[in-house]
């Protein structure tokens, strides 16, 4: 039923990563940091689903994340939903936004990225508008202290991460994943070969939105107090994209390596000296594009190694 490649990916990457992140809280006391690692591991794979397999670069990826966070909060605050049900609302909110923005997929290349960036900023402007204070609390932020439960939230974040990793492994080993990559390489040949281009892209797009929506919902649950600028901060999109590209997209391991190295560096020097961090980060991104545009894993791939 599962291909050998899928099983190999799952055994070599998915199981160890999830297991490590599951046991680390017992050894390391900064749980918020570990949680953030899980969040970025998931978001980087979300970017990987879209960019690695379809070539669309979602520069406003944080829009789905924020939609998920607010979907979760509105369900908890107004519908008095239990957190697990509210997570479903988070996914639904992100999917709904994905459907609204689906026409953006008609745009190509940079136009898609810019329109996506504008869309995420537009969603932020709408949600933080004081006129909507009754629904979203406008710019004044959300407090979910009633459902605060970091242990369970961390567990759910791990579940989302595991599901996302398995989905990427599936894309790497299935006909559907091949179909997406065929569309990325040449739209017309793929469509001549009988691939339903619109449907395939739509599935990848909604999957990518869903990943960010669930992550946003879990994030809202875990931090429980946040402002619109927190969950719509451009750094979520940027970090997720840079991590994924740094490691190497359309692999399972690449985005993970990117998160571990770059987010690790961020936490070592970024917190104490943010300006110098931004400087180093900028140079790192430029060097990446100029010298290693296919990511770290391409160093191994060039030697003929099939990176998981």
């Amino acid at each position, binding site marked *: 039923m599962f291909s050998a490649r899928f099983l190999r990916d799952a055994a070599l990457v998915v199981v160890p990563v999830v297991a490590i992140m599951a046991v680390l809280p017992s050894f390391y006391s900064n749980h918020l940091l570990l949680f953030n690692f899980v969040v970025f591991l998931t978001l980087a794979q979300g970017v990987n689903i879209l960019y690695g397999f379809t070539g669309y*670069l979602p520069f406003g990826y944080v829009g789905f994340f924020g939609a998920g966070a607010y979907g979760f909060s509105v369900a908890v605050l107004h519908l008095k939903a239990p957190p697990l049900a509210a997570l479903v609302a988070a996914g639904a909110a992100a999917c709904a936004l994905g459907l609204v923005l689906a026409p953006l997929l*008609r745009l*190509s*290349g940079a136009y898609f990225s810019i329109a996506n960036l*504008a869309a995420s*900023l*537009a969603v932020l402007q709408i949600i933080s508008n004081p006129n909507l204070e009754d629904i979203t609390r406008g710019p004044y932020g959300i407090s979910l202290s009633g459902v605060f439960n970091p242990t369970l939230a961390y567990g759910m974040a791990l579940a989302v991460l595991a599901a996302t990793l398995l989905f990427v492994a599936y894309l790497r080993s299935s006909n559907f994943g091949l179909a997406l990559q065929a569309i990325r390489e040449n739209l017309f040949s793929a469509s001549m070969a009988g691939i339903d281009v619109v449907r395939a892209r739509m599935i990848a797009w909604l999957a990518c939105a869903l990943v960010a929506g669930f992550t946003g919902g879990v994030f809202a649950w875990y931090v429980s107090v946040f402002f619109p600028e927190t969950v719509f901060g451009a750094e979520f999109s940027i970090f997720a994209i840079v991590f994924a590209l740094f490691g190497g997209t359309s692999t399972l391991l690449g985005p993970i390596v990117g998160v571990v190295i770059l987010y690790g560096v961020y936490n070592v020097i970024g917190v104490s000296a943010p300006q110098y961090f*931004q400087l180093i980060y900028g140079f790192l*991104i430029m060097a990446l594009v100029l010298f290693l*545009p296919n990511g770290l894993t391409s160093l191994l791939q060039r030697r003929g190694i099939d990176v998981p």
Partner: protein
Amino acid sequence: MLAYTLFAGILFGLYFSLVGLGLNLVFGVMRIVNLAHGDFLMLGAYLAFWLYTLSEVNPVAVIPLAFALFVLIGLPLYYILVPRLLAANDPEMLSIILFFGLSQVIEALAGIVFGRSERSIPGGELGRALAGFVNLFPGAKMESGPVEIFGQTFPAAWVVAGLASLLAVLCLYVYLYRTRLGALTRAVMADREEALSTGIDTHRVSAIAFAIGIALAAIGGVFAPFMLGSITPAMGVEATVTSFAVIVIGSLGNPLGTVLGGIVYGVSYMLMQSYLSSWANLLPYLLLIAILLVRPSGLLGRQVRLA
């Protein structure tokens, strides 16, 4: 009220077309997205601010200096970044990330050098420049202060920024359509491969276009303290998005399209400010998405950008 709004919208629109002009040129010629465009605008704004603060140089006098300085910065920057980028697999996509990195570097350096506090220049300075200019003509007499046009009074800063922007657009138009280098630039815009095969030094032409694009952003920045509010190292992102909205509404590679885009943008911005002010910040984003979806080639464009 309506007449005031419309005219103010046109003045702002002219300024917004100056803001977008350089980005349009760079994208048109090189097919790369200069996500650091707004950061060069920010640097131009700081140049004007420091020259004014340290030695009271009038911002209008800073314009030629800013142009020359940023052309000199832009030329080497082109040769460092772009030829390598254009040789890559997917230059359009990678350019977004590359110039995002550059924008981070510029913003961080500006934060370290200039500090994070908000800066501004008194608006009367541009009025003094305008009055000084008008009084150069024999028989003309003008006080520095608000300017009256069609019975409405506008801050002199808006009028000067609008006029200077118009002048910049005209200069670029003359460059592109009346000079030999401009003709070569348009050839590269139309088809890079073919231009190369007819013996055009595409890198040289592109480097000049790139430098001019950056210098135009810096000139836009000189007026930023008067038109966009106080200046901070982080103002670049918003300026970049605004520029995108403007050039997408207009069309690519055509300076007249950018003017049209700027004016559409400026007038709708002013209308939103007057009648629906709490939603005005939403406008650039919605306009950008709407135009991209409905008419992706822009109002005056012919190229098709659909996937």
